């Protein structure tokens, strides 16, 4: 009795040409024409990221079991639903890895997916209904959230305007400038429901109250909500999918595990699994992880205000969760995660290149540095994709900073174009290290030298130390160097002279920074010239010119 099958019905929005035309396509259509579509073009970058991971989960599942031609690998058994039923022998893991590389390479050469993927989807056709009484996609059945299993009489209800993160409005506060208005805020089409459902499982917040059972547990706010997403983009959707298809996991311990995408299990199994002590160990399971047991009433009339019910599921282990290839990491020196790595979200208002080191540098470069495995993957496939301009994309959901509600308030999205040979050149005198030095020095010039100048000016003006003058000035400067830095970065060709290229950047950096300082000088008032008397007699009092000269001195010294 299923309705709206995601394999056949169009629901994923894709970009079909350079002019920005979009259309909604089905899963089958998407895989068949991935090479012709430019990119995912959903309602928001976070949504695209969530959908991308769903698509990757399908590919991971299929191509961990079958090679590019659709032949099953002989290391384990496969049942009639194309499931891997036995595990791989430990001594076969190496050969298996080789086979996986071969599969990946063949697909990259073929530029299209072979039939096996459609065969697989057809086999699991019954699990891809958006509305279904037995196996609703990304949702649970009514029985799973029966009143006796949850902490309250009824699961929390979430209305369409909250689910739709374009509106993201709760029942208590009205979003003033929302793209929808009035009662149509609550109405979602079936494709919209499907897209936002996948997104919601990745980014949900903590404002809902109902949990399973009576005993408290650490509830998930959505795995994607907690990570600083990093992924790669090719020239079309096929390339994007392949580049991110980490078929041979760079952390070898994850290679031997079976892929367990959520649709191969019943909703009860998934809820039970999320409460079990076993760590997530395979990518398909991680990519299709749920933050909530979501129930959509089958009687729902989608022409009316839409809502679904949710119950909190436990959080995934964050510490050293190196299964996740698409995030940057923070090494914790204190707190409950001391000595462990946890995913690090992107900072709002900070360009991605400022995290350049975190994203690209190999693990050994700095102590305790953990690179996103997706970058290691690029190292591994660099020979196949040789000299390819890739774009590194970063995406995070910004939260409201309130530990009890954790409401998504904004998206952080950025991209960086760079030649893959630069990324993989991690030798001691290689490009990676040199570029990273350039980034570090840039951060030092802006965040320290220039900041100190602004602090001096702030003191001369006797502004409060909380005054935004300094921070705003520093942000302005970052904003000003953003574009030039990107252009410089994407202009680098592997064969360029490193010294020339780097000093070219330093020259323009100094120029921009100095221009900004000059601008502060130009806006100086008489009081700035007269300055302040310092208590320290040696220092002879400071004024804006002494501050500037000091700044110039440090700028030139660097």
């Amino acid at each position, binding site marked *: 009795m299923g309705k709206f099958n995601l394999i056949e019905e169009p629901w994923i929005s894709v970009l079909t040409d350079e002019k920005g035309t979009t259309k909604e396509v089905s899963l089958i259509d998407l895989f068949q024409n991935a090479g012709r579509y430019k990119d995912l073009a959903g309602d928001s970058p976070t949504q695209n990221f969530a959908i991308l991971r769903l698509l990757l989960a399908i590919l991971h599942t299929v191509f961990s079991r079958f090679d590019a031609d659709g032949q099953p690998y002989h290391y384990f058994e496969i049942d009639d639903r194309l499931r891997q039923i036995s595990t791989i022998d430990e001594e076969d893991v190496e050969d298996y890895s080789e086979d996986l590389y071969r599969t990946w390479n063949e697909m990259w050469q073929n530029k299209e997916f072979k039939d096996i993927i459609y065969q697989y989807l057809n086999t699991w056709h019954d699990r891809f209904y958006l509305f279904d009484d037995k196996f609703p996609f990304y949702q649970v059945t009514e029985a799973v959230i029966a009143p006796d299993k949850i902490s309250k009489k009824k699961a929390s209800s979430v209305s369409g305007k909250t689910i739709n993160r374009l509106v993201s409005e709760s029942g208590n506060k009205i979003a003033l400038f929302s793209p929808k208005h009035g009662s149509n805020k609550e109405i979602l089409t079936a494709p919209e429901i499907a897209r936002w459902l996948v997104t919601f499982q990745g980014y949900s917040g903590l404002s809902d109250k109902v949990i399973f059972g009576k005993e408290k547990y650490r509830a998930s706010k959505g795995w994607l909500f907690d990570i600083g997403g990093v992924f790669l983009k090719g020239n079309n959707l096929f390339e994007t999918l392949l580049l991110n298809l980490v078929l041979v996991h760079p952390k070898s311990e994850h290679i031997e595990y079976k892929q367990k995408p959520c649709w191969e299990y019943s909703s009860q199994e998934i809820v039970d699994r999320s409460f079990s002590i076993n760590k997530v160990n395979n990518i398909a399971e991680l990519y299709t992880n749920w933050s909530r047991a979501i129930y959509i009433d089958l009687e729902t009339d989608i022409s009316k205000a839409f809502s679904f019910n949710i119950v909190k599921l436990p959080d995934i282990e964050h510490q050293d969760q190196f299964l996740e290839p698409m995030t940057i990491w923070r090494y914790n020196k204190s707190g409950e995660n001391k000595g462990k790595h946890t995913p690090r979200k992107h900072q709002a208002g900070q360009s991605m290149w400022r995290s350049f080191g975190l994203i690209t540098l190999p693990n050994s470069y700095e102590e305790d540095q953990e690179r996103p495995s997706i970058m290691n993957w690029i190292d591994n496939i660099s020979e196949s994709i040789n000299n390819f301009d890739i774009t590194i994309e970063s995406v995070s959901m910004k939260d409201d900073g309130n530990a009890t509600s954790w409401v998504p308030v904004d998206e952080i999205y950025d991209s960086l174009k760079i030649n893959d040979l630069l990324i993989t050149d991690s030798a001691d005198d290689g490009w990676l290290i040199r570029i990273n030095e350039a980034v570090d020095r840039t951060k030092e010039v802006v965040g320290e030298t220039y900041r100190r100048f602004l602090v001096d000016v702030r003191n001369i003006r006797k502004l409060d130390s909380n005054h935004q003058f300094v921070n705003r000035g520093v942000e302005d400067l970052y904003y000003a160097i953003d574009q030039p830095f990107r252009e410089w970065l994407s202009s680098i060709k592997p064969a360029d002279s490193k010294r020339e290229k780097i000093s070219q950047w330093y020259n323009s950096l100094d120029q921009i920074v100095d221009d900004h300082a000059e601008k502060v*000088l*130009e806006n100086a008032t*008489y009081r700035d*010239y*007269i*300055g302040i*008397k310092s208590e320290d007699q040696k220092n*002879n*009092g400071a*004024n804006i*010119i*002494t501050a*500037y*000269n000091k700044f110039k*001195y440090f700028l*030139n010294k660097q």
Partner: protein
Amino acid sequence: MKEHVLDKDNVFTVTGRILGRLEEIRDYSSGKAALANLRNSIGRPLSETIDVWPIVFEQMPEHFLSKNGKLTSEEKAILTTLQIYALHQQGQSVNVNKRSEKEKWNNIGISLKALRNGEDTIAIDSRFNTMITSTTFEELIHHLRQLVRILKAKKQNEKIVYARLANDLYWYLRNQEENVRLSWAKAYYSKLENTEKGDVSND
């Protein structure tokens, strides 16, 4: 900013020429008289200071000269500079105008920087700050004269590039006071210029 047409006379070159002429005749009575006349003209309307006319206007190109009786910016800048020069030169045996090719663009801030040492620095700084924050040309000149007097009293060997001063005053009068203020202040408070690099780390 590029000094406009190069082959044409500008405030910098004209002032340099006049100063050269004054130096040549300095040891003669005519030269002494000229300096005395310049000093005497300070603070008086031009119509009452007929004595300085030959010195000043003899060398001026046609287009600097006023057509309506009011002083042009060029005239005002050059005359003011000459007056300060006359003050500075009084009773000195060596020439106080610096003419070296290498330092010809040093502004007066660098010369005044010589005063910034010892215990007087704070007092000198505040005088300097008062000067550069002047709101009118007259106020600026008033403070400038005082500073030059102090310079003369304390630093006998310190010279000023007077042609540059005239040039700066000219642009000050042409509504570029912000730039003049900045460049003087930068030079005055600078640490690197005129000192060996090694000295910097000691302070």
